[in-house]
């Protein structure tokens, strides 16, 4: 167990190095100069040059990169070009919103996806199975921004059941939950659809397995056959999909946060990219990438806990 974690952490460091380099490079290669944006349209050439000098943008690219890395190792992600606030503080203040949204979405996705998948498999080729297949396909195909807008229109504007946007209250209050529901459905639908498809096929395979027949031959109750003997085996591939999706959700809140005006990391990222705020973009991407890899590590560990055939060696 410890070996696995150490190996994965080493991999994680290498991976993050690579990611940080690519993000660093792409931001500098992309057209647009942060000094122009900070200076504004009225700034003179000398002003802009001064800003470039003070931000260290005139140094060679590799020097800038290593300066940045040095800071990161010390926990210093730099300061925003735009607002001058510390990148780590800005990220930390926005991250809880993003995390809440991602967790709420994955809960929506798991509850809907796994349930629909299991029922589909148990009632193979029934009307429910057919309907679930069509809805899943729609769920995967519908873009977030459209679904979000429609949900706002129907449930917030017309029915007025939920607020139009914002995420200001803590999630354990009724208000906070109300604020979370529409964005969580918007973000979770695609994942729910994928999880449903995966659960269905995994369950179908397991239901026909010899050991399920053995369980029935032992006189195990049908409910236990499904919920214990089948589910544990069927969940092995589903957990991979859930983990991957959770990673995507953490990084994929950008559009949903924008649609629902939620002050999270995704929205910060969009604003920072538009402003060529290099340190902020780099910090945000590194954060999301780290979380993605960590989630995958957790998935691997859970995987090994469920399936005894997978060792930790």
């Amino acid at each position, binding site marked *: 167990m410890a070996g696995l974690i150490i190996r994965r952490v080493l991999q994680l460091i290498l991976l993050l190095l690579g990611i940080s380099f690519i993000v660093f490079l792409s931001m500098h290669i992309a057209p647009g100069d942060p000094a122009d944006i900070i200076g504004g349209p009225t700034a003179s050439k000398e002003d802009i040059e001064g800003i470039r000098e003070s931000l260290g943008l005139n140094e060679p690219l590799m020097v800038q990169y290593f300066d940045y890395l040095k800071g990161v190792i010390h926990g210093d992600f730099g300061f925003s070009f735009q607002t001058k606030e510390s990148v780590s503080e800005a990220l930390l203040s926005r991250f809880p919103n993003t995390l809440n949204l991602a967790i709420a979405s994955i809960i929506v996705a798991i509850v809907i996806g796994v349930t629909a998948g299991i029922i589909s498999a148990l009632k193979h080729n029934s009307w429910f199975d057919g309907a679930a297949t069509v809805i899943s396909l729609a769920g995967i195909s519908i873009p977030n921004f459209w679904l979000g807008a429609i949900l706002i229109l129907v449930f917030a504007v017309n029915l007025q059941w939920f607020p139009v946007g914002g995420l200001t209250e803590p999630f354990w209050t009724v208000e906070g939950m109300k604020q979370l529901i529409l964005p969580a459905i918007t973000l979770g639908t695609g994942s729910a659809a994928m999880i449903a498809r995966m659960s269905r096929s995994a369950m179908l395979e397991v239901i026909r*397995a*010899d050991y399920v027949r053995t369980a029935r031959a*032992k006189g195990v109750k049908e409910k236990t056959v499904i919920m214990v003997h089948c589910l544990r085996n069927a969940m092995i591939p589903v957990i991979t999909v859930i983990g991957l999706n959770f990673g995507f959700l953490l990084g994929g809140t950008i559009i949903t946060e924008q649609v629902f005006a939620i002050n999270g990391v995704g929205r910060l990222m969009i604003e920072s990219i538009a402003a060529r705020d290099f340190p902020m973009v780099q910090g945000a991407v590194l954060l999301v990438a780290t979380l993605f890899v960590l989630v995958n590590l957790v998935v691997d560990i859970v995987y090994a806990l469920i399936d*005894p055939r997978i060792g930790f060696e």
Partner: protein
Amino acid sequence: MEKTILEVEDLVTTFKTAGGEVSAVRGISFSLKKGETLCIVGESGCGKSITALSIMGLLAANAKSRGNVHFNGKNLLELKQDEMRKIRGNDISMIFQEPMTALNPTFTIGFQLCEPLLIHRNLSKKAARQKGIDLLKQVGIPMPEKRMKQYPHELSGGMRQRVMIAIALACSPKLLIADEPTTALDVTIQAQILDLLNDLKEEFETSVIMITHDMGVVAEVADRVIVMYAGEVIEEGSVEELFNDPQHPYTRGLLASVPNVDDPEFKLNPIPGTLPNLNEEIRGCRFHPRCPFAMEKCVQASPVQTNRKQNHSVRCWLQEAEADEYSKCQPSSAV
């Protein structure tokens, strides 16, 4: 051998398929006495396993059984799901062909072994564990305490089949159905498992239905044998009768298909042709297209059961002909 514990009457099992309804078992009848070992033999696909699963009520959703299966004064085919569930693993248990896949890979041996005890015997977890360890000892598994905590993938095929036997015998069933329990195992392990089954049968006073296509297994364990062909019972008798005086051409064919390593002159004599498809309609005797002795009558009508002796019955038109006449009968090509 006194009381009859299982009585199967005119069991028909059909499957709904895309191509219509097909019959896998076509009206078979047999009975089993207490303590008896009955072997059901026949080629793959002749309906042996379906017969077993019909008795257990473990058929796929698209299958349906009719007829009567009397066990302990109840007709199993008429029982509700939950009543049948209480019999499975308790009064009737089953061992399957594939020990590699018959155990759940994600649960320990202990969990899977204790499950029937917890369900049917209401034992405490601790008592079930102790009983589980005893059972593993009884089926000859070394270090049972350690095995209880292991997972199926940590055991060999023979060990897993022993575990399956332990699970099946956990609640001392009155009837044990073993569906080709040795087919997937090495020859040396096969013999061990058969010996074990024979011993445990005495110990637990269990009646056994052994399904096999291996005449060697039949000779080893059977008291009585029924031979199935294409969903029908074509010959039934005591093991001595069947080996010494086989009547049906198919039974003779089966015995002639067993290799004999002791005799260098021995030539394997397989039955020509293959088993008919389930949906294939064959007029008359279902074996006649493959039968070297087929007559006009065999094509026209299904043979009736003739009792040769008290414990030997055959379904073949040849029985009608004079014994010496049919022994002279020259093999003709299939009709």
